[in-house]
């Protein structure tokens, strides 16, 4: 406390350094031409550039497969990342192996980078189980559906790493809509004060379901929110993989070096419906969609690699083929995948055995036994009874 607490005191932190630049960082123009920016070096080898492209191609193909699977009744619902491949793949690429990703429900691209089997994620959308991958194996937390809540988990995890003097960084993904919820606000407050090494990565895809950005916030940009927490706010063209990588890398390295958390707003566009249940024709126009399509991140990266002679027809064909194979593997894993043992519902509620749950498990076991008895001659577990909108 100073001598005169209400006096015009010199501020400890310089707010100017926290504000985002007037223009989002963009290193690749839509035709793929590279414009260097000394503040945002792109520390990527040629091989890595190509590998980022490959991951984006795979992401898009698997994403399309998921939509197909949903249309065929194999998934209950699916949230596509079409158009957001650069924002996700290039940001996740900026992490080191020990770093952790805290996704929302739309981060297929980040999952591909972390080598999480997409089929495991799709089990959630199919409803086979609530999740199906080991977060510790891939340092990729469970998909999080309640908007913005995972920002606090990423912050707590980063607080733990800092306490433990473990040089790991967490990145948390949420959307433009998510910035309105209380949890990301509290997360950035905690992270700022406790200097947790966490990067808040907002994919501003212009919509929260049907609600466009200008009905979500009156802020000049989402990155301007950072100053309110003492965080640097970055803004990048999220359909530019190089800009996204460079900006994220800078934030990740700063966090790892102990300089604290950061907020990144990546400008992108959700090309698909919010989820397969959504009807976007109710709230956006064909023209808008066509305009957005011209900013496509994969075309841009392809142009760039072609300009630099890093991508030839054979490699491209190879990626397409690999993507098809990955899609097929996902399809094989998901298609008609049977549900598991209903009795497992009682196995993970708590670690401790509970007599009350054991008794209820026994009730269900008896119901199942009665059912089997009633269905003699049937083979295999039938469809779950009573499910579906049976009205």
């Amino acid at each position, binding site marked *: 406390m100073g001598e005169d607490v209400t006096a015009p005191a010199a501020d400890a932190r310089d707010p100017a350094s926290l504000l985002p630049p007037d223009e989002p960082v963009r290193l690749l123009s839509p035709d793929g031409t590279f414009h260097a920016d000394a503040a945002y070096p792109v520390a990527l080898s040629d091989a890595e550039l190509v590998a980022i492209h490959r991951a984006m191609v795979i992401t898009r193909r698997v994403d399309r497969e998921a939509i197909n699977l949903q249309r065929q009744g194999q998934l*209950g*619902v699916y949230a596509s990342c079409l158009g957001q491949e650069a924002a996700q793949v290039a940001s996740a690429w900026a992490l080191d192996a020990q770093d952790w990703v805290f996704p929302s*429900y739309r981060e297929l691209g980040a999952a591909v980078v972390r080598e999480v089997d997409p089929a495991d994620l799709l*089990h*959630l*959308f*199919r*409803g*086979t*189980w*609530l999740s199906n991958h080991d977060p510790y194996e891939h340092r990729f937390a469970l998909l999080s*559906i*309640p*908007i913005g809540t995972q920002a606090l988990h990423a912050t707590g995890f980063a607080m733990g790493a800092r306490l433990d003097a473990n040089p790991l960084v967490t990145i948390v993904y949420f959307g433009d*809509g*998510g910035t*309105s*919820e*209380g*949890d990301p606000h509290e997360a950035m407050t905690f992270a700022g004060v406790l200097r947790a090494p966490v990067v808040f990565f907002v994919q501003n895809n212009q919509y*929260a*379901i*049907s*609600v466009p950005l200008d*009905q*979500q*916030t009156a802020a000049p940009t989402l990155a301007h929110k950072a100053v309110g927490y003492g965080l640097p706010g970055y803004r990048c063209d999220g359909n530019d993989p190089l800009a996204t990588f460079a900006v994220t890398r800078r934030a990740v390295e700063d966090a790892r070096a102990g300089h604290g958390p950061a907020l990144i707003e990546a400008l992108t566009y959700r090309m698909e419906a919010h989820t397969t*249940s*959504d*009807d976007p024709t*109710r*709230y956006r126009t064909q023209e808008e969609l066509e305009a957005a399509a011209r900013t496509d991140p994969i075309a841009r990266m392809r142009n760039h690699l072609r300009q630099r002679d890093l991508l030839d027809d054979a490699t491209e064909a190879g990626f397409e083929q690999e993507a098809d194979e990955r899609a097929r593997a996902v399809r094989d894993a998901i298609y008609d995948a049977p*549900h*598991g043992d*209903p009795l497992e*519902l*009682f196995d993970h*509620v708590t670690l401790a055995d509970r007599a*009350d*749950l054991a008794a*209820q498990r026994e*009730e*269900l076991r008896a*119901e*199942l036994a*009665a*059912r089997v008895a009633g269905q003699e001659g049937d083979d295999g577990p039938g*469809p*779950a*009874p*009573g*499910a*579906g*909108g*049976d*009205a």
Partner: protein
Amino acid sequence: MTVTLAQAINRALTDAMADDDRVLVFGEDVGKLGGVFRVTDGLQTRFGRERCFDTPLAESGIIGTAIGLAMYGYRPVPEMQFDGFSYPAFEQLVSHLAKLRNRSRGTLRLPVTVRIPYGGGIGAVEHHSESPETYWVHTAGLTVVTPGTPEDGYALTREAIASDDPVILLEPKRRYWMKADIELPATAPPHTEAVVRRPGEDVTIVCYGPMVRTALEAAEAAEQEGWSLEVLDLRSLSPMDTGSIVASVQRTGRAVVVHEASRTLGMGAEVAARVQEAAFYHLEAPVLRATGFDTPYPPAKLEGYWLPDVDRILDLVERSLAY
């Protein structure tokens, strides 16, 4: 005419807005999109963006501003997009919406109708199939109602909006497409009265919301076993029409309560506690409970094993009759 539950609620909102220009509908995606279940479809077109509007994505914000709007003199009808997304608004619902009238010694009236699509059975991902009624019913100051039929969808919605008390309107989302041949505007008894949907002699089935239809199916099936079930639709969970439950049980001597919510401290517990208090000597069997289990809501492919269905109800009826 043939009306679905969703259409009946939509019509009730439309009529309420037409009758009283202080009625406002707002929430996430309720405007231009017409709601993810289309329950608010057409309201923005008809009544304008001032009276039906999309909000930022923040549930505490939705309920908290609804309280302020109500204090000003409006009659807000905010929506929580799904049951599981009412939880961020818990503090505003429990510490303010429920209590401000009492805190102000009656000076503040909060005619707020909180619409919450709830319950399972639609094959949804997690957080979209919750049955949160216990949280609201245990909270003094809230009125909690849930329609089990399209008529009630209309009537309870109108009654809630007309009430000067805050009302939680739990809409059984898996029944949105349930049809009835009715005329709108529909009338119905006040929410304070439970309704016998099917009279019977042997066992009283106490149910509400999404389980009314399931209970009726069970009653149908029971007939083949020679059991006569009385199906009582509570309609209002708070207040609960204890008198009607007790009257029925005094005749049948037996009761099975049916709900999707987990068993422990689900509505079945309160029904059982009250029935044994009020009809102790009439009971020929304990009040039994056909409910969801005390586990988190399961993944979609397993929800059919978790949710109470005709078989589970009949099992308990049989157990009850065996006493």
